[in-house]
């Protein structure tokens, strides 16, 4: 099978056109799958990509996706455009959010998993977010869907019914601040907490409580393909459909101990 396309998507403002590969790749039955090596769902994404590729009778050829960008995303879409033009047929692990600024040169597949954010506390007095006094401080994973939900919820409340919130990029640091009492609760993606359990024994003391009265934030995870690859996207959508229906994705989520549901 020959993957690729005849036309290159238009370059964005920041990408010198000379950096984009306009050739038509010949790669047999391989599909180039790009994975964010720093992602907390790296191994899960690899497993899902292998399942997608197998269902399409393709061999996954894993590549590194661009990573390590500032919280203002400076340079990210430029590097991603280069990667999608030159080395990726499919990028795994993309968030499907109403506010995501998907560029015109890319399109997303259907979601293969929906994984929630969690609210972790140590104080046994808390059973829900609403139990935490307003004079306490909450930590949020910076730039995350959970933080967005928290900010948006707070804006609907009177000022005297809002918690102070601190953004954290380092989840271990946030756990340390939860442990030392600097913050009273932390909102992070469930796979991040699973990772914390693997690397820091202090995570054992964290209890998960309900978001009530705030709605539980959920991230739907999809793939990204070039907008020129409409046939490929349709095939991947069909494959994801099958893998959701036959329980493959759900089994993988259990294996990785992720909360949530298969599909979108």
């Amino acid at each position, binding site marked *: 099978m020959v993957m690729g396309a005849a036309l290159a998507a238009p370059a964005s*403002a*920041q990408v*010198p056109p000379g950096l984009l590969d306009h050739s038509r790749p010949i790669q047999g039955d391989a599909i180039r799958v790009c994975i964010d090596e720093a992602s907390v769902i790296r191994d899960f994404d690899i497993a899902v990509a292998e399942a997608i590729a197998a269902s399409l009778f393709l061999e996954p050829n894993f590549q590194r996706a661009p990573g390590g960008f*500032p919280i*203002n995303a400076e340079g990210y879409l430029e590097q991603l455009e280069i990667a999608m033009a030159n080395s990726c047929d499919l990028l795994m692990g993309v968030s499907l959010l109403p506010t995501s600024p998907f560029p015109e040169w890319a399109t997303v597949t259907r979601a293969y998993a929906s994984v929630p954010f969690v609210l972790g506390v140590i104080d046994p007095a808390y059973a829900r977010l609403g139990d935490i006094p307003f004079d306490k401080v909450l930590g949020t994973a*910076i730039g995350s869907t959970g933080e967005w939900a928290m*900010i948006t919820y707070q804006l609907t409340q009177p000022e005297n019914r809002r918690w102070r919130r601190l953004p954290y990029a380092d989840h271990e640091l946030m756990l340390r601040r939860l442990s030392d009492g600097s913050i009273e609760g932390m909102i992070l993606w469930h796979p991040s907490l699973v990772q914390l359990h693997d690397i820091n024994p202090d995570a054992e003391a964290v209890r998960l409580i309900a978001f009530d009265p705030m709605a539980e934030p959920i991230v739907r995870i999809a793939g990204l393909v070039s907008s020129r690859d409409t046939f490929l996207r349709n095939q991947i959508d069909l494959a994801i459909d099958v893998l959701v229906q036959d329980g493959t994705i759900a089994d993988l989520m259990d294996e990785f101990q992720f909360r949530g549901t298969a599909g979108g």
Partner: protein
Amino acid sequence: MSFTFRTSFLALAAGASLLGTSALAQATREYTPVTDEMILNPPAEDWLMWRGTVDNHGYSQLDILNKDNVGDLELAWAWPMADLGLQETAALVHDGILFLQTNNSIVQALDAVTGDLIWEYRHPLPEISSTWGYQIYQSRRQKNSIALYDDKVYLTTVDAKIVALNAVDGKVAWERQVNDYSKGYSYTVGPLVVNGKIIAATSGCSITGTAGACYITGHDAENGEELWRFNTIDDPNNPLVDASWGDVPPENRWGGTPWATGSYDPRTNLTFWGIGMPAPYAELVRGSGDGDALYTNSTLALDADTGELKWYYQHLPRDNWDLDSPFERVLIDQEIDGEMHHMLVTVAGKNGIAFALDRDTGEYLWSMDTIYQNSVTHIDDDGTVHINEELVPTAIGQQVMICPSVSGGKLWQAASYSPKTEQFYVPLTEACNNVTAIQAEFTAGNATGSMTFGPRVLPEGITEAGLLQSIGISPDTPEDAWKHRQRTSMTSTVLATAGGLVFAGDAGRYIKAFDDESGEVLWEQRLNAPVGGAPTTYAIDGVQYLVVPTGYSAAAASSASMFPEVPLPSGAGNSIFVYKIGSATN
């Protein structure tokens, strides 16, 4: 003292590729070390640092090239740059050698008369890992990343090192790892070297791993040993800093990158640096409430020997729109009625507002709008800046129209001051864009993206994006001297000369020479790509040369939506064109 060397071979610095020797110059050269005295009073024939002099004037005392003969400029030679990337370089010249820094930490030494390559240095980067995406991006946009001092060329690299190269052969004399690149730190701009000290400004301070710290550092020029460092977003000596972040602890702060090389006043031994925006951009996200987020968007005056903060002035408090204010700080002295006034003049930030400060105290003197902007409503007589609070996002997803756009207004392209006319020549772009505070999380679980920017559009009633504005400078009040407006945006730094000329380039690929008193275009030449970087000038044997860098320009590409009738080239074309005028005297 001088060093003699033969350019009979290409010096192979670490990582350099082996090139044939046929194209190399075969001559014996002498290289005179650059002394402290030269740094403070550079020979008119040389161009020793980014803006020519430590006061950042961007002004040449040469007048061989002047209003009368600019039409006779002829091309001496041209040279393609060594790599692709955003072209924002400034060629330096000393002792007949032109030192050219290009993207990806490459430095070349060229014969300034003939354009022959003398040596080339390619900085060997560590293996690129998947977490290096931003540094790869940064490496393509390094600008003016070299400085000359003694017998060395100092290079700041994308992997956060200062590298000292021997000026005669390009070999590495020493290198110093200043910051941890694995956390995200890098260098985008070159150092200032004064009094035997290298002063360098860090980039990458919005990457998650750099939480709580962005630095300006001082080093011994002999060996790179660190002498001091100043953190631009955390200052235990000033309690106002914590309060200005709404008591968000330093470990939860980002931003404060100094994006342009600083200036220096030998009279007070102070060095002046501009600082960039806070991150995340929107206060809704960064948690700082209505605090000013010091020292973002400020001018810092630091003791050059110790890094001690003497004063600061914040040009844009409470930034919510990435309208950062890190650009060149220009030091201007004027004697009026027997009294000497020591000013710092700057169009500090993207919103294009010109400021004058007393540079000994930081006292506000005056300000003046240039392009159309709506981010600042007014500035009090004491210099307190009032932002337009109606444009502060109050909800995630809220869209506001900000002028100028995230691309400026003013950007890295530096202004120039002529002591001859006492005018300040500023390259500007009229533009607006929609700004939306979002939580992007483009890839699941990763913090990348908290703002989107719509396409650049012209402000209502304005049809010309490009503006070169001349401001008459005095301690009391600025004068709107002249304006040159044009459809395409200004994309190069400005050069003023004693020959009465002001050189500036644009997205339409034109390099233009303006009359420094009237703004009349006296000469123009259309080149291969948008004019970028910094035009510089030098003289050898009675011939004056003009260096014009061209190439891929983010400033041109991002503003091109405002002048669609002028298509940009799809090729990068990163080059320098060297023009000359005059007769050889020997």
